């Protein structure tokens, strides 16, 4: 039995799983003891007993899983029915909606979610779900590829950091609501300490920790090296480096000139001029959500809801021919998704029963009038979206913002925000209504 503990059998589950369960049990036990001590000291809040109890329960669950594995060699896994259900119900639209929904819940219900009562579950439930999913061989081989580990690390680190930052923001917002300064601004925190030794030793410690982690990572995982470069043999799928996979994923929804060039350029430009859009000083130097709820929500949506999500979809959910695969679906069976261009103009003309001129009918390039008379629905929609919508909004919800920052900044900010929002709208338009072009001008190349 001891032998088995030291050298777990690789089948059916990866050996490392057992160790992760053990680590989970230990961490939860430690957390239970620590929160238990705090609960005993804090006599005013007896309900906090639930925190160590929850940690203890998770520790017990992990221990039971380990014990069961020792006797039967089995780890908890997802039944085939559930896996098939997950695979069949996931598609780009549902993945996006689930993720945006989770983000929405996290931001709206941030107060209960960062409370001490919720902490055991927030940390343990995703970990357990991930561990249970890992017993599936397809999922395990997908996430254990060396380059993919970095993406897992990124997602985990970003979510952890966001959770930590939101906890501090909630605490500061409560202070500000009571008329007190945020924690970073309290008298004791504003006192000066000497850089040597207070900061220098933290930096030294950080360097040692980073070096240790990097060396461990490098020793346990060798850098990938595939077959030598061969221009005659295209791999399927050919994927960009993971940090650009999000842009590659955008190619599904936009033409290359938008997905690869215009969208990243405009969003980078928007990122750069962000501090010039709302130039009023103040509100800086401490974690907060309520001070700038709209800006923060928009930025977090762009960072986690688009950039991170598109990378995850492109890396983990896209297989051969860039077709969408569920997390437990084998990649060996190539799918072919044939999508004919379905522009908005043809849908609209079908709807109102008028046959508009089809693109590519004539050999000669069409005149501007012909294009206009064909593509007026999409062009009109874009005009309404980028011009009329900001005008209409400034009478209502964005009135105060418009007054504060002035005309130029207002329209710039609104254009950048609406431009970013065009990405999720276009994703849903394609995945739910099967409309993949708002404006379709293949003759000139300016399709949107």
């Amino acid at each position, binding site marked *: 039995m001891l032998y088995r503990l030291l050298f777990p059998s690789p089948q059916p589950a990866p050996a490392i799983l057992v160790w992760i369960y053990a680590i989970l049990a230990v961490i939860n036990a430690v957390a239970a003891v620590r929160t238990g001590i705090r609960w005993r000291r804090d006599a005013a809040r007896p309900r906090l007993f639930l925190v160590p109890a929850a940690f203890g329960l998770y520790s017990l669950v992990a221990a039971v899983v380990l014990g069961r594995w020792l006797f039967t060699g089995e780890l908890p896994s997802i039944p085939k029915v559930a896996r098939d259900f997950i695979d069949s119900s996931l598609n780009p639209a549902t993945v996006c909606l689930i993720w945006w929904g989770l983000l929405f819940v996290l931001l709206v219900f941030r107060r209960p979610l960062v409370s001490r009562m919720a902490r055991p579950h927030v940390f343990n439930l995703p970990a357990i779900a991930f561990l249970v999913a890992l017993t599936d061989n397809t999922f395990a081989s997908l996430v254990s590829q060396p380059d993919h580990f*970095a993406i897992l690390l990124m997602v985990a680190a970003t979510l952890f950091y966001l959770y930590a930052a939101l906890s501090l923001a909630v605490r500061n917002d409560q202070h500000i609501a009571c008329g007190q300064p945020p924690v970073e*601004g309290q008298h004791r925190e504003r006192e000066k*300490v*000497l850089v040597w030794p207070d900061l220098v030793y933290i930096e030294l410690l950080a360097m040692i920790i980073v070096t240790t982690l990097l060396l461990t990572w490098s*020793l346990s995982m060798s850098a990938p*090296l595939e077959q030598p470069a061969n221009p005659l043999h*295209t791999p399927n799928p050919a994927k960009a480096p993971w940090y650009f996979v999000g*842009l590659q994923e955008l190619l599904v929804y936009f033409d290359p000139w938008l997905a690869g060039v215009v969208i990243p350029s405009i969003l980078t430009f928007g990122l750069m001029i962000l501090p010039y859009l709302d130039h009023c000083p*103040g509100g800086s130097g*401490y974690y907060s959500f309520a001070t700038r709820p709209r800006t923060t929500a928009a930025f977090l949506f762009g960072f986690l809801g688009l950039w991170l999500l598109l990378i995850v979809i492109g890396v983990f959910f896209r297989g051969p021919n860039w077709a969408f695969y569920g997390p437990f679906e084998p990649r060996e069976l190539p799918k072919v998704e044939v999508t004919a261009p379905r522009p908005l103009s043809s849908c609209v003309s079908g709807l109102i029963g008028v046959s508009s001129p089809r693109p590519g009918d004539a050999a000669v390039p069409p005149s501007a009038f012909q294009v206009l008379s064909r593509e007026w629905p999409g062009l009109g929609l874009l005009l309404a979206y980028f011009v009329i919508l900001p005008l209409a909004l400034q009478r209502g919800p964005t009135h105060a913002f418009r007054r504060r920052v002035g005309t130029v900044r207002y329209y710039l900010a609104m254009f950048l925000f609406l431009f970013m929002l065009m990405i999720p709208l276009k994703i849903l338009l394609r995945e739910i209504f099967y409309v993949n072009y708002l404006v379709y001008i293949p003759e000139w190349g300016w399709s949107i």
Partner: protein
Amino acid sequence: MRLRQRIRRSQLYRSIIRHPAPKDRRTRTAVVLTNLVLHLHPVAISRHAVRIGYTWCLGGIAFFLMLVETVTGVLLMLYYRPTATHAYRDMLELRDVVAFGMFREIHRWGAHAMVIIVMLHMLRVFLTGSYRPPREFNWVVGVLLLLLTFFLAFTGYLLPWDQLSMWAVTVGTNMAGATPFLGHEGPGSTWLTAGGKPLITPHSDIRFLLLGSTQVTETTLNRFYVLHCIALPLAAFAFCALHFWRVRKDGGISGPL
């Protein structure tokens, strides 16, 4: 103990390290003021700013990873030749023959970690509102550094010269061919003409500028090698210097006003 004091008093030691041992407030100040690396810091700093939970050391870790990448990158350059015949073989040699060839792993995973940490650093600066005045220009410099990090990682991705790297770079640079007006597959490229001849062709567009060829070839390898080892690191270090300088000049690390 007496030996240590003799060393400290020796002419050699005092010529190298000017400041006395950091024991009290005065000498600790002197350390930070006279040391080349430490003088990036102010002498004293608010207590909230040294809390791990405020910065998570993300900016410092990003810079540290950049230094790790520089050191391991120089080691890799000793073994690596950026030609189609040698590049892949040198990779195999690094993997199978070279003693402590592990620095290729450190370089690759360090690069991934650096991309992640730089993005998280941006998130931290945003969530603490530190991008706001008076630090708005330093935010711009930070976005440029993020872009430089991406381009450094992207140019390095090609160098192993295996299927993964070649096709990843092909996918990435194909998008440049779709640049409006300036890429041969981009919209509006046929509008630019000189004397009746098209100005933008597969041999003269922005993608060709990037690749030095119409597809990813040995010329591209050389181009990316030079960018990865010389041009982009120099730019990144220059912008880092500006970034650190501005942190100090904009009032040090951010805090409530």
